[in-house]
């Protein structure tokens, strides 16, 4: 595979950096090169959060995303900033729980991620892992699902995997 660039965006506290770490750990398990970075503001909670993962068979020098293939937006602000000017070939996943209207485009998934986490698992805290499952389903062909699953399990609080 060539360079795959993934961007996870939303609000501080949604667990997007952790989701990016789990994705990156799965890539290490798949024997691929990977770098993971994030940018956030000086505040401890809230504010815009953006996590990036670059996966490649080749060495990765420049560590930041230049042309993302896969973008997740889990807040209105993140959608407006990162979802609107995305090239057509990139895949966009939008959490309809927080983004109330999405401009029509190809390669887009408009799904109630946080709402489903709340309804099925009883807490929005799992929305980041649910989003990771979606990413695996739609766009990361080079990464076996089993590796992603075990990366999530390694980081799950004891007992939560059984739910």
């Amino acid at each position, binding site marked *: 595979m060539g360079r795959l660039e993934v961007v996870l965006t939303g609000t501080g506290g949604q667990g997007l950096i952790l989701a990016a*770490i789990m994705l*990156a*750990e799965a*890539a*290490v398990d798949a*024997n*691929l*090169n*990977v*770098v*993971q*970075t*994030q*940018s*956030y*503001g*000086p505040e401890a909670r809230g504010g815009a959060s953006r996590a990036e993962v670059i996966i490649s068979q080749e060495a*990765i*020098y*420049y*560590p*930041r995303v*230049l042309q993302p293939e896969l973008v997740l937006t889990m807040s209105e602000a993140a959608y407006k900033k990162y979802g609107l000017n995305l090239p057509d070939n990139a895949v966009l996943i939008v959490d309809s729980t927080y983004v109330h209207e999405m401009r029509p485009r190809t390669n887009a998934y408009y799904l109630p991620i946080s709402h489903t986490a709340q309804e099925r698992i009883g807490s929005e805290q799992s929305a980041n892992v649910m989003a990771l499952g979606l990413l695996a389903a739609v766009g990361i062909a080079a990464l076996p699902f089993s590796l992603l699953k075990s990366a999530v399990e390694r980081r799950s609080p004891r007992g939560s995997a059984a739910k």
Partner: protein
Amino acid sequence: MSEARLMQGNEACAAGAIAAGARFFAGYPITPSSEIAEFMAEQLPRLGGTFIQMEDEIASMAAVIGASLAGVKSLTATSGPGFSLKQENLGYAAATEVPCVIINVQRGGPSTGLPTSPAQGDVMQARWGTHGDHPIIVLSPATVQESYELVITAFNLAEEFRVPVILLLDEVVGHLRERVNLPATVQIVNRKKPEVPPERFSPYGDDHGMIPPMANFGAGYRHHVTGLVHDVNGMPTVNPALVTKFLLRLNHKLDPYLAKISLYEQILLEDAEVIVLAYGCTARAALEAVYLARSSGIKAGLFRPITLWPFPEAAFVPRQNIPIIVPEMNCGQLVGEVVKIAGRHNVYSLSRIDGELITPTQISAKISEVISRV
């Protein structure tokens, strides 16, 4: 080699320090270096070491010096505002020749500046932040793997040459998570101990290849420690001959060992018609730009100083009239050293100071611009 794993730059610094034998950390956590203190707080007590969160950065640096004098490899970690506060005691460590490691994960400055954004604004402060002529070694990693390796090198150099060593990261490398393969064993250097009995020991005697042996404080060897200019017994002096002798040895003690201290990487330099000189996170963008230039027929090469101070000038000998581009995330700091070597008319500074990482495209554009001029 052990198994590959994902590791953060700051975590790699802490893990490397432990592998190097460090068992004392005193600090005052600050973004973007806090993970180093967090990791140390978790790990050191389990290893019989000591973690202290001090009341401020000044005291942290003092505690590090004290612990090292007692024979324990010691470090602290900080960022710009804290690094400023450490300068006074950093000078004390240089003057008293106490081995120690200071990790500075740079953020945007001056003052509290941009706490979560990358910059390389402390390059000159790392060299000259404390007053007076003094020796110092400054190393700059570009990857997570190299952060691990260089913190071990930092301890080894500090111990061998009795000098404070600064590991100068930037926010990008400190917070980056990357695939690493940590070595199963590492090479460790420990400070030389006196071979003479206590009554014949002179703590700053100069007959040992410029680097006097060091006794652990409390081990029975008399060792007077002062920041005042001192004689070979460590006692204050204003005798001009002794002052000169002390300052000359202090400031030239690294000279015989520069080949060992000067670390650098050269990529595609043999036939290069334009050289990019870059360090830390900027070197990662620069390497991408060099490959881009090569693919469009421009013979570009990269010189990456890993040791920033002393600047590896013996290794960096560009051919006559070769343009040199120096991208930095500051207003132009290390470029001054390059100008000293290559002359003003061949050297092009490229600055980025907005808190965002410099991009390969920016450096590529500068390469094209410079090539079209010559």
